[in-house]
C-alpha cells in the first residue's frame, strides 16, 4: 500500500512539472502569436485562447504541488477568477473594436444583423 502512495507522491511532482511546463509553453506561444500576427483580431484570438489554456494548466500544476492546503483554495479562486474574467474581457475588447468599425484584414466588415445601424448585441 505504501509503495502506491510513494509512487503517487513522486508522480504528483512529475505531473505538476509537466503541467507547469505545458502551461508555460502555451502562454509563451500566445505571446509570440500576439507579437507576430498581422491584424488585431488574429492577435486577440491568439491572446485569448492561449491565456485561458495556459493559466489553467499552470494553476493545476501549482495546486498539485501545494496539495490540500489553504493555498490550493486560493489558487483555485485565482483560477476561477481568471476563467471568468479573461474570456469576458477578450469578448468585451472584440465587441468594442467591432463597434469602432475596426476592419479585419481578411474578409469584409459586416454588421452582425441586417438593419441594425450600430451592430446589436450578441
Amino acid at each position, binding site marked *: 500500500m505504501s509503495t502506491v502512495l510513494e509512487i503517487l507522491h513522486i508522480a504528483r511532482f512529475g505531473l*505538476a*512539472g509537466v503541467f*507547469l*511546463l505545458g*502551461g*508555460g*509553453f502555451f*502562454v*509563451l506561444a*500566445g*505571446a*509570440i502569436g*500576439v*507579437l507576430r500576427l498581422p491584424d*488585431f483580431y488574429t*492577435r*486577440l484570438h491568439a*491572446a485569448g485562447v492561449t*491565456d485561458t489554456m*495556459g*493559466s489553467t494548466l*499552470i*494553476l493545476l*500544476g*501549482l495546486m498539485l*504541488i*501545494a496539495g490540500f492546503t*489553504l*493555498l490550493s483554495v*486560493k*489558487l483555485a*479562486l*485565482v483560477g476561477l*477568477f*481568471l476563467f471568468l*474574467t*479573461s474570456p*469576458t*474581457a*477578450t469578448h*468585451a*475588447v472584440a*465587441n*468594442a*473594436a467591432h*463597434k*469602432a468599425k*475596426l476592419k479585419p484584414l481578411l474578409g469584409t466588415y459586416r454588421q452582425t444583423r441586417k438593419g441594425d445601424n450600430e451592430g446589436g448585441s450578441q
Partner: protein
Amino acid sequence: MIFATTLMLMGAMTLMLARLLRGPELYDRVLAVNSFGTKTVLFLCVFSFLIGRPDGVDIALLYALMNFIGTIAILKFFRYRALDVALSRMPSRNTRKKAGAKS
C-alpha cells in the same frame, strides 16, 4: 522546473510589453495591457512558489480583479466616451412586472 516556468512567463510579459509599445491600433494596446495583466497574475502565483512564501497568491487574486475592472473601464471609456452611462440596463421593476404580467 518552477524556475523555468517563471522565466517563460517573464518572456511572455516582455513580449506583451513590446506589443504595448509598438501597438499601432489603440485596441492592440488594450489587448496588450489586458493580457500583460493576466500573465502577471500567473507570474505572481509561480513566483510565490519559487520563493516559498504563500503571500504572492493573495496579490495575484487581487490583481486578477483589478485587471478586469481596468479593462472594463477602458472599454467603456472608448465605447461610450463616458464612464457613468449604464452598460446594460437591469430590467427595472416595472418592465419585470410587465414581463411578469404578460407571461
